[in-house]
């Protein structure tokens, strides 16, 4: 929905002000967001996607009668 409360007129706000309200930007600004923690979490997520992801290839020939 676009109304006067949400509409941002280009050039009317500083980009850093907009970013400062962004949830990801705010998360990165917190002390908890240490690169080692974030990097490790990202790695665990990637590993989980690979290990728990669905098989993308069907078996070549499945001779199940």
């Amino acid at each position, binding site marked *: 929905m676009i109304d006067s409360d949400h509409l941002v007129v280009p050039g009317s706000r500083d980009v850093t002000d907009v970013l400062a309200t962004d949830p990801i930007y705010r998360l*990165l600004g917190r002390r908890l967001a240490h690169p080692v923690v*974030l*990097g*490790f979490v990202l790695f665990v997520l990637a590993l989980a996607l690979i290990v728990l992801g669905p098989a993308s290839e069907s078996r*070549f020939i499945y001779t199940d*009668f």
Partner: protein
Amino acid sequence: MKPLRILCATALVFLILVAATDVGVRAAFPSLPRLDGDFSPALLELEIDRLRDGSPATVFLGDSELWGYRLRTEQAAPAILGARGLRETNLSYEGGSPVNTYAVLEVLLASGVRPKRVVFNVNQKVFNALDSAYATVQPSVAELALPRFSPADAALVAPARAPATFEARLDRGVRAIWRLYALRNDLRELLFGDVDAAHALAARLVAADGTQRRTDAAHAPTAAVFEGTYDLAPLDDTNVSVHFLRRIVAALRAARVPALAILTPTNHTLLHDYIDTPQYGKNLAYVRRLLAAGGVRVVDLDGAFGAADFIDNDHLTAAGNERFASLLAPQLGRP
């Protein structure tokens, strides 16, 4: 710390962890007693590297018969022989055929592997042009082998799948640099015993509630299922499987690798109406002559087993595999 700096540092930590895991995977990914059901090109390369770097072993190349269809790994004949002291590597897989055996052999020899001997099976059903493995190479093997095929040989087989989509290109790119990703199919089979976690869970559920038992009972193989499986037209060089059988013999001879060919045990009781004809015997004799003329030893086990040893037309039970191993043992210098 500025968010941009945090993002860069996070990416660096992620890449360091990925690289460290890859070093571990390359060094410690276990050698599998047989190829898994959906093996990747990376796994085949890994096994070939280990074969090249290790002492010469007996290498089994073949189809589901030697792979151990519907059996646990240790119940397949090659594994039984391994447990009796034979140094062996089983590179068989479901859907084998002469073109598949030739393809793996080509990759092995081109990679500098010189096996102590090669043992492969020849199944009469794959001389049928309607067989799904007649002129089709398993995709992971095709990726490694088809670029090595001569144009004439490549023209005889179904082209390898190499989609040109962005997703496929990205997949190939990531596989090339990230070993863990390249081995993901094999890792899943190693962890779950199935193609992925969802299939593994589903298999356990249908086994637990009796569905699997009822399905197996309802799909007990009957002779009618195999009508058309065997083509009893006289064999000649126009047959793609015959062509690649000749290629196998020539490659083994050129590389001076001793070989033993097994004429696959076949359930004559079940298939009596379709295969117990003079032409079937003539086709077997044709294959025997072709192999023997190229210096390959042949052990004919086509009619060596009774119906009780089979799961279906040609796959042996666990007890059948014990007998199979005992029949092969003297041929391989084992007691």
